[in-house]
């Protein structure tokens, strides 16, 4: 095989990519900036007003709360797992985290509906008011079910990477536990922590299936539900392009999130070899 022919193997993927990923993205951009065939900024303006803005703010709020709480709880759980002496327990928690972190979507919604929904098994025992699951905090509790395991998966290797020798070195130099965490532990963990927060935010922000299956949209405005409604309803003519503009807003937010995450991920692997 000569050098000039070598890249031919990559050609099918590139062509496929251009058509199946490139064309929809171009269509999205074109739709967001046009209305009835004319270029306009109206769609974007509308996507940042009224109910659309509320739904964007709702999504950002839910995702931010889930990211911060999930990061905190996930780190505590990961620390408990990593410092535990029982390898069986450790294996069990890490395996379960692997399953639950990737197991979102529709079934997750039904688990929580069966547990804390209006006719749920546990909501009866706790005497929860009707609709408690479909509130802001209800949604947060549901989203934490995949966010905490995700954080455990991010933090467990990072915490494992804290070598006992570093702690001993700090102690030999007369440092206290505070000094160790302040100057060694936390700085080494910071990229993983921040990366985890950002990852959790991104996954909660993009989530649609769980909220849709729960029917949470009636109480908590979410941008994913808003886009889906605008795309599937036949009543709102012209809303389609606003939905595309909303999608563009979402991609911008998700893109910012990834722009923060990827460099952090590279940095956090530096100490973990």
């Amino acid at each position: 095989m000569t050098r000039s022919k070598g890249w031919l193997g990559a050609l099918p993927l590139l062509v496929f990519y251009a058509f199946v990923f490139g064309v929809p993205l171009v269509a999205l951009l074109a739709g967001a900036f046009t209305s009835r065939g004319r270029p306009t900024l109206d769609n974007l303006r509308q996507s940042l007003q009224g109910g659309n803005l509320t739904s964007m703010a709702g999504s950002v709020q839910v995702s931010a709360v889930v990211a911060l709480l999930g990061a905190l709880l996930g780190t505590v759980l990961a620390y408990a797992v990593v410092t535990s002496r029982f390898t069986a327990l450790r294996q069990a928690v890490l395996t379960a985290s692997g399953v639950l972190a990737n197991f979102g979507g529709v079934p997750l919604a039904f688990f929580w509906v069966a547990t804390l929904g209006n006719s749920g098994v546990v909501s009866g025992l706790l005497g929860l008011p009707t609709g408690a699951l479909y509130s802001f905090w209800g949604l947060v509790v549901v989203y934490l079910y995949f966010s905490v395991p995700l954080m455990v998966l991010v933090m467990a290797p990072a915490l494992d990477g804290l070598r006992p020798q570093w702690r001993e070195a700090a102690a030999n130099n007369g440092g206290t536990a505070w000094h160790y965490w302040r100057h060694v532990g936390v700085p080494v963990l910071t990229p993983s922590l921040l990366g985890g927060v950002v990852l959790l935010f991104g996954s909660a922000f993009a989530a649609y299936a769980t909220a849709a299956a729960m029917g949470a949209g009636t109480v908590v405005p979410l941008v994913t539900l808003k886009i889906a409604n605008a795309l599937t309803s036949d009543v709102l003519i012209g809303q389609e392009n606003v939905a595309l503009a909303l999608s563009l807003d979402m991609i911008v937010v998700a893109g910012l999130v990834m722009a923060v995450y990827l460099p952090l991920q590279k940095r956090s692997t530096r100490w973990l070899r």
Partner: protein
Amino acid sequence: MAAVTGLEQPLAAAPAARTARPRLWRAAVFAVAGLYFLVPLGASLWYTIYTPTSGVSFGAYGELLTAEGFAGSLALSLGLGLATIALVLLLTLPAMLAVRLSAPRLRPVMEVLCTLPLVVPPITYVAGLGTSLRTGADLLAPTPFWATLIAIQDPAFPVVLVLAYVVLVLPFVYRSLDAGLRTMDVRTLVEAARNLGASWPHVVFRVLIPNLRSALASASFLTLALVFGEFTVARLLGYQPFAVWIVTISGSRGQVSVAVSILSLLLFWLLLLAVSSAFGREKK
């Protein structure tokens, strides 16, 4: 739990005094986490087998098999999953080998392209996809391509979903194969095999693929798991594979939909177990 605590005693005899407090703290963390993660599973199980009127019965699981659309949607999801696996491997494997063997300058491009679908949330991707399908049908109406565009949207087997799923799983498949390719020196292997007179198909099927077996297996299982759980794209394009079907029946048969959810968690867990055992074998 009692068995685990019993095991721990001889090990912990010496430093017991020092670690007594942190261990309590850890036990509390595990207890709270256990409650939060296990109660919904237990409650869901209870929900599917108990009703105040008829008591405990496993009827929901039996009803499942006869429920309208169950077999059809399951078969559709399985078909979509297998087609997605075939297409994504057929596209990525040659591309990644070509990049390693003869076009290393394409490698950063490939990495960016294969990470990009992670940045685009599925709902926004399907918004663009739906729009381009509709505009495409208008633009291509006078040409023969129109028939192709309609054919890939056939509700019996929507090829368009396979295409969309390939895009969605691309980042995961790329990472998995990249990790597999990292464990071997592709160029040396290929040169050695070629010098010994092996033909290209022989190199690919007898040298490279056997070395990549576990990476290919894990990529395939991940793809299957992802396709089975996928809801957003299928729902918005108006098809009814498994995940969409569950939501459709949840209105009339709440118990059945929860029962299916439990079964799909079990299935997902088994698939991931298969992935991790495929990777575990490679390490040895």
